[in-house]
């Protein structure tokens, strides 16, 4: 069993890039990751990658080089990037390979996603009557959470305000202008209680990581960023998920809680040990709820945390230091690896204007998506 290290990272700016396919963006990220650690494509022995809507990752071998390597396509919703990462990590940990690559990329059309009921095992009338939108799930989940735990609209606004402030400092972010709290709270109501600036948009982008065994990482000689945990989990009984036509009256846990617990156990640490975190924030309410689901605070404490700025860069636990999905947009296949990219940069203390001060040693990433999947990583330096 070898420990697994992230030795190279690369990203293609998120947002919208006309005339450049999802695979073009992925190639950019892969080449940047290889250059980051001074390797060439023929050095890579194993690869996992995928997108939700931008094609197969393995098709890129025609442009990267026909080296004959093992390249496995992944399609796992919002956990696509995380699943690619844990595939490579498992192969290296097992000793089968000592150098691998994970890539996630996507390119979505503008506007809300329009999934079809049959793809989700639902009758057509659920979609025909307009009850099958991701935005409705986000809105009703946070609406209930606010009712139960005393979270105010201002707290939702503060999460979004922080995202745009951080995005303004991140080269790879899409939204690069700060937006003040009043403008966020008073922007168009999209799906109550969430306003326009509290939602992310489907977007484009790509991120790639080069992973190595301990021996290989030492040979490469860069900063040693260790992958302490990479887990992906599915939902427990009684969870509330996207496109649910019903919810159990006996309320259960969440896929995030299951994944977080497994990740902490694997890494042998707890939430108090985390120095910087990237969590799923398809909308501002998601970040609020995921703070508790990942164990950073208790339900309801977010009100005080956000008011005191504890999740800002420079706060007790900086969250979504590159602006998260709110500022970067949501290319489904790429978001999970963008988060890992951001934590690697933070742990290397190479994040420039958005660098978490002090000496961050432990980074945490979390994605959540339909139909109840979550992927978590823990990195340490």
């Amino acid at each position: 069993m070898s420990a697994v290290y992230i030795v190279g990272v690369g990203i293609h700016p998120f947002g919208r890039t006309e005339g450049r396919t999802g695979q073009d963006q992925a190639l950019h990220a892969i080449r940047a990751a290889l250059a980051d650690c001074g390797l060439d494509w023929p050095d890579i022995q194993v690869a996992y990658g995928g997108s939700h809507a931008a094609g197969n990752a393995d098709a890129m071998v025609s442009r990267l080089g026909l080296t004959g390597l093992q390249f496995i396509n992944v399609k796992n919703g919002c956990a696509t990037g995380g699943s690619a990462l844990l595939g490579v990590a498992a192969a290296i940990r097992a000793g089968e390979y000592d150098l691998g690559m994970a890539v996630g990329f996507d390119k979505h059309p503008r506007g809300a996603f329009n999934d079809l009921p049959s793809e989700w095992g639902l009758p057509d009338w659920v979609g025909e009557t307009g009850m099958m939108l991701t935005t409705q799930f986000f809105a009703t989940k946070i609406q209930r959470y606010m009712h139960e735990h005393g979270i105010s609209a201002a707290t939702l606004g503060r999460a979004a305000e922080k995202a745009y402030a951080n995005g303004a400092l991140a080269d790879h972010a899409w939204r690069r202008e700060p937006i003040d709290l009043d403008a966020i709270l008073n922007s168009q109501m999209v799906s109550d209680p969430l306003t326009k600036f509290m939602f992310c948009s489907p977007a484009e982008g790509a991120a790639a990581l080069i992973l190595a065994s301990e021996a290989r990482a030492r040979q490469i000689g860069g900063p040693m960023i260790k992958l302490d945990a990479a887990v992906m989990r599915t939902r427990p009984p009684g969870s509330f998920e996207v496109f649910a036509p019903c919810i159990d009256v006996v309320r259960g846990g969440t896929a995030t809680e299951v994944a977080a617990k497994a990740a902490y156990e694997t890494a042998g640490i707890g939430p108090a040990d985390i120095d910087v975190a990237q969590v799923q924030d398809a909308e501002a309410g998601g970040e609020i709820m995921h703070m508790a689901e990942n164990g950073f605070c208790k339900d309801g404490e977010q009100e005080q945390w956000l008011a005191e700025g504890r999740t800002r860069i420079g706060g007790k636990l900086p969250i979504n230091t590159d602006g998260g999905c709110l500022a970067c947009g949501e290319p489904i296949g790429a978001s999970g690896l963008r988060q890992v990219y951001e934590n690697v940069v933070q742990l290397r203390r190479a994040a420039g204007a958005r660098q978490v001060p002090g000496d961050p040693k432990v980074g945490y990433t979390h994605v959540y998506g339909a139909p109840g999947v979550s992927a978590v990583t823990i990195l340490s330096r």
Partner: protein
Amino acid sequence: MATRPIADGIWTDEQPPRLIGGRDRATGRIVFPMPNGGEAERFDPVPLLREGTIWSWTVQRFPPKPPPYAGPEPFEPFALAYVELPGEVIVESRLTGFDFDGLACGLPVRLTIIPFVETADGTMLTTYAFEPAA
């Protein structure tokens, strides 16, 4: 105008109607709608309570994309809720008869059937919704 439900099997034929859920034979857990196809083998159809409370809600303020959306033009925003039917299940539903500003978790609601959209042959398709019960 002739009317018919947007799909069969969502609610009962009785007056007033009830939604039809599915009760898991092994665990007693209730789901909505009643599953069909292979999944239905585990479930018995069960008529659900007519009255409950708003568990959570939102307002659909922008037109959903067709497909799958097949609502009338021009689009009118509508309220949507998860309604808790006590001891049974929490169901997703449209709301009708509420001011958007007055919506809140915990409000009592009752099942009703509302016109949804007119077909090309002049039939009005109906769907279910919950209205204020107080």
